[in-house]
């Protein structure tokens, strides 16, 4: 808010002289010299980029061992600062620590690539990723403050799981009885969901509730995304041709089991209303996984399954008061309804009259969704307690 505006309000008689003085003092104390910060930032960025270019240009002349030593020393510096100066850094700005932890994790990951370059070795991506997760996961969980580190943990876990399964899936076709390996692969794919109960447990017991809340949200999102994808895939009949694969009957049962167990645990360790609803959503996502197979190829049933999942999410959001989640659920159901109308009557698009009809249908659904959102959406987003 600029001082000019305050003067105008005073002149218009909206605020008296005392309020004006108070506002001006407050603004002065709390204002941030953004322009100055921007100049500092640009200067620091230029110096940083220059250093990187100087190093990059002479990269070839530096022996590999020296390069690796520098890399490890930088990492040691970042980790050392986090370990010895955590309290001071957080006092200055929680984001400083968050950024430092993220930088350390990135330096750790790039070290694997650097090793491969110096020693001319290579291995499938899941190997360095899983070793990295093992070495840096605990550090991230111990120091993370917000969504950045939570995202690195969750993203790293999901990426590692996917890489592992895709690069080893061929094994399923090479063994006589693929039941056990399939169950194992599905366990790996579903494992990131287990961060939800872990995060739910620490959320109320840690000094960093924001980090654990974000982690729980991300795990829930992963479960819901998986279940929605499964329900969407069912309408184009993906599952009937899948017997020996992670999305075969065995794999889906395992994924469903993980969802139900994770959801139950979330409700158990965080027995508030929001915890129970989050648990119910995760368990519901698990059940959807299993049902997706039985409705595979039946367009109407697949659409109903998808909408049922999101109606459940919407109902949970309504009960707890998650405004954003409720609106998202209404939007998801509306979009699915529109897609369903085209699936069931695809020839509508082929005639002019049909086109007009579908236009009205889309407008009607959109208007209905908007009205529902307006009418029923919880008043305000309880930021501190959102799923």
């Amino acid at each position, binding site marked *: 808010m600029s001082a000019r505006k305050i003067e105008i309000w005073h002149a218009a008689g909206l605020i008296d002289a005392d309020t004006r003085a108070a506002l001006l003092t407050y603004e002065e104390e709390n204002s941030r010299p953004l322009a100055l910060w921007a100049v500092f930032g640009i200067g620091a960025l230029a110096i940083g980029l220059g250093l990187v270019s100087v190093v990059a240009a002479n990269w070839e002349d530096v022996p590999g061992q020296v390069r690796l030593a520098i890399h490890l020393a930088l990492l*040691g510096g970042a*980790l050392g600062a986090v370990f010895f100066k955590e309290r001071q850094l957080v006092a200055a700005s929680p984001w400083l620590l968050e950024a430092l932890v993220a930088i350390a994790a990135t330096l*750790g990951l790039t070290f694997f690539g650097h090793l491969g370059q110096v*020693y*001319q*070795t290579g*291995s*499938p991506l899941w190997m360095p990723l899983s070793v990295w997760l093992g070495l840096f996961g605990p*550090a991230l969980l111990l120091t993370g403050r917000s969504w950045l580190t939570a995202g690195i943990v969750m993203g790293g876990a999901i990426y590692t799981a996917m890489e592992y399964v895709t690069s080893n899936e061929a094994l399923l076709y090479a063994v006589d009885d693929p039941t056990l390996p399939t169950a194992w692969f599905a366990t790996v794919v579903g494992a990131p969901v287990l961060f939800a109960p872990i995060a739910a447990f620490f959320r109320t017991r840690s000094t960093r509730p924001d980090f654990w809340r974000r982690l729980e949200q991300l795990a829930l999102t992963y479960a819901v995304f998986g279940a929605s994808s499964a329900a969407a895939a069912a309408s184009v009949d993906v599952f009937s041709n899948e017997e020996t694969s992670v999305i075969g009957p065995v794999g889906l049962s395992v994924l469903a089991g993980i969802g139900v167990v994770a959801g139950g645990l979330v409700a158990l360790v965080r027995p508030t209303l929001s915890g129970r609803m989050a648990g119910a959503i995760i368990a519901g996502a698990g059940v959807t996984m299993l049902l997706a197979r039985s409705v595979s190829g039946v367009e109407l049933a697949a659409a109903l399954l998808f909408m049922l999942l999101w109606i459940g999410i919407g109902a949970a959001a309504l009960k707890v008061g998650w405004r954003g989640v409720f609106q998202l659920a209404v939007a998801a159901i509306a979009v699915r309804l529109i897609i369903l109308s085209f699936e069931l009557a695809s020839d509508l698009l082929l005639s002019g009259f049909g086109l007009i009809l579908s236009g009205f249908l889309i407008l009607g659904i959109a208007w209905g969704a908007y009205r529902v959102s307006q009418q029923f959406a919880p008043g305000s987003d309880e930021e501190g307690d959102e799923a």
Partner: protein
Amino acid sequence: MTQTAIRALFLLLVPLAGLAALWAQSETLSRQGTDWEVPIQGYDPRDLLRGHYVEFNYDWPTPSDEREDEEGFGVFVQHQNLCLIGDAPTIVEAIPFEDATDPEFERCKHKLSVQPGSVYGYDSLNRGRLYVGQERALELEEGLRDREQIGIVTFRQRDDGVLTPLDIRFRPLTDEGQEERDALRSEEAVIVDAADAAIEAANEEADAPETDPSEEE
């Protein structure tokens, strides 16, 4: 364990000691083995430089009956195991084996086997890559394009059959090599000529019906 000890363990010891151990392992493994030399060809002359490495095909001196079919045409073999014979760094002959459990292969002194887990997987005895800096990569790319010389890769062969490329150098073609190359070129020329002739004939044929009706009129 106290809180501080746990934090020291997971914040400092595990990440740093873990990466240092991996480094030490890479270093020890890279020192083991015998150094050999093998001629190579650029993998794809239009796209040699991929980021920070050069990609190439190995030209193993396998017995001639393994390289050509009955009519003398070259065949592509995806090598699974190779037994190197010769005095390092000179390979006199590389004998392919389908099966790593072949007793004859097991007796071999210098073994190479495909590494299914490596970047090239089951193709890792046919293709390879060498990580180099940008400048060096451009140099190597140029060198591999030059038909008057051949690239030689020095690689380290470990007793467990792992191959690690170390360096690339160039050697001018010997007279024999030049003859071989020229023969290959004339073969190529024959094929290109034949193809041109075929295209011409096809074009003439295609033209023919168009001209015919007009003549009839």
